[in-house]
């Protein structure tokens, strides 16, 4: 598409403007994490750039422990979701049983119930199981995900039924077909869902707050909140340093995932 120069200029100005507005808080956070507390509170431009905030963040709080916990929790949720959702989606697509579609619609209907509504029963269950302050208490309630099942079902539906039939004639059972054909063919969606699941659980706040009572399994988002409220005068520099550390894994994953996604999309689709 060709555009006149005037039009181009207008477009780029608008794009730059909106990008700046969108990105401003992030830039501010990154800049503030390198500033001294004095500069931040006076609202002036940074006179000196320092790494003290980062050192402080790691020294004062068990940030490594939090990050580790967050990783464990996010990866467990991601894997759990991938396994359960893909198995459920497989059943909804390739197995024929009575009331399959009805069951699926009921399944989908649960998407309309916000997590906050089920948080109390969930809390009761993990408390009765004695799972408070444990990784399983933080992760298991999120394994079954209607959205993921829906996403994968739509993707599995694009796999021609003949592939299943050909494997039936070859004498391949459901589980082996799932492992050797469905999963590799639907790789792209699995990556998408994986990234989505990881990021959502990485950013989770309310549930970890409820399900943990001490630092042993607490995730990094709660840790950040603690940075903020521990002192009367907030040390914004330290808080921002913590926030920047927290977004780094997210960004890495996003970049890696994006690359993989593009490759996955490019090599899919066979007529």
């Amino acid at each position, binding site marked *: 598409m060709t555009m006149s120069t005037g039009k181009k200029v207008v477009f780029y100005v608008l794009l730059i403007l909106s990008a700046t507005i969108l990105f401003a808080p992030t830039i501010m956070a990154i800049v503030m994490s390198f500033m001294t507390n004095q500069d931040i509170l006076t609202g002036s431009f940074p006179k000196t750039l320092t790494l003290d905030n980062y050192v402080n963040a790691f020294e004062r709080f068990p940030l490594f422990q939090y990050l580790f916990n967050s990783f464990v929790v996010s990866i467990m949720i991601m894997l759990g979701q991938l396994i359960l959702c893909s198995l459920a989606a497989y059943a909804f697509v390739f197995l024929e049983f009575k009331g399959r579609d009805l069951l699926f619609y009921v399944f989908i209907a649960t998407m309309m119930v916000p997590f906050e509504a089920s948080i109390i029963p969930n809390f009761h269950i993990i408390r009765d199981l004695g799972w408070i302050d444990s990784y399983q208490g933080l992760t298991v309630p999120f394994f079954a995900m209607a959205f993921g099942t829906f996403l994968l079902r739509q993707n599995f539906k694009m796999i021609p039924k*003949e592939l299943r039939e*050909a494997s039936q004639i070859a004498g391949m059972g459901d589980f082996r077909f799932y492992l050797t054909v469905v999963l590799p063919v639907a790789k792209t969606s699995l990556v998408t869902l994986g990234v989505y699941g990881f990021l959502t659980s990485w950013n989770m706040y309310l549930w970890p707050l409820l399900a943990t009572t001490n630092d042993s399994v607490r995730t990094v988002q709660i840790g950040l909140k603690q940075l903020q409220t521990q002192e009367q005068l907030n040390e914004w520099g330290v808080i921002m340093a913590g926030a920047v550390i927290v977004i780094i894994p997210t960004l890495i994953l996003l970049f890696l995932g994006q690359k993989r996604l593009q490759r996955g999309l490019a090599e899919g689709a066979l007529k």
Partner: protein
Amino acid sequence: MGQVELMNISKSYDKQKNVLNEINLSIEEGEFFVLVGPSGSGKSTLLRMIAGLEDITAGTLKISDQVVNHLPPKDRNLSMVFQNYALYPHLTVEQNILFGLRAKKVQKEEQQLRLTETAAMLGLSSLLKRKPKELSGGQRQRVALARSIVSHSPLCLMDEPLSNLDAKLRANMRVEIRRLQKKLGLTMVYVTHDQVEAMTMGDRIMVLNDGKIQQVGKPITLYNEPANVFVASFIGSPKMNMGKANFSSDMKQLVIEHEPHIDIDPATVSKRLKEASITIGIRAEHIFPGTPDNTTHHVEVVNVEHLGNETTIAFEIASDLWTAKWPGQWAINVGDNVPVSITGEYLCFFDTESGDLIRPAMAGKSQEVIAI
């Protein structure tokens, strides 16, 4: 081995209307058997029932004298080629071909042996490392064939395998599949909606319409003696010309609707013919160009197709459009009044109500004898 027997096979999806009705059929060992019919006739369903991919509602299915009604597909010892080839997009050609053998846990050396043999047979040896999306339609088709051959199953089912190919490639593959089947002695059940494929490939053909068998027989029998109006119009290209007809009062002529009269020898008219209301049919190649001696009718041409080796002309008879196919090239234009010869001995007679054949064309048969 490899013999398929269907006894009173029926299929219905909603327990009310039958998709297939009381199919009785026996397919011999080493036979190339073609199921042909228009879309929705139930031919694919029948094939899938043989494969075990669809339940059998009623009746008995035997493969190699063993009742297999409730046997899963893998225990029926057959292979199948699908219309869209059903190749696994993430596997290479080699892995695709060996897919079934791996599932059946055939030994590694045996796998390699069969792979090289089959690949050589189908000219795939240089393509083994490619993915399906890097292959042309014909090559994908060959991979699908290879996958079915490599299983060494005596019975091979094919569901419209050539319908995604262009005309030229299709003609090649027809010959190739036929040769392969003869060479390996496979029992083949082949589904198609294309009557040309059916005629050229089948040892025997079954014509299916609306879930009922219309006729089973050799291709040439179906062509010369179609059991009913449906088979007559389905087999053969262009389709057989048909028209409702009555005998004139002196029994010497046949009147097609009102207009054209065809002379007919009263001695050949049987009692049954006189009593039934009849529909006559005549093949396009049996309407000859009229010479001064044999011209029976003059017709106004409404369409001409010049194919080089032959010329087809269309004209109106009563309310129908009939076609005549003449060998060679004829300088005829639309609107010309052309002399033609339509004679009684080439007519097939059908009962209008039931559609069944009363008497096939007499002349068509005698030609067959001469040909032998």
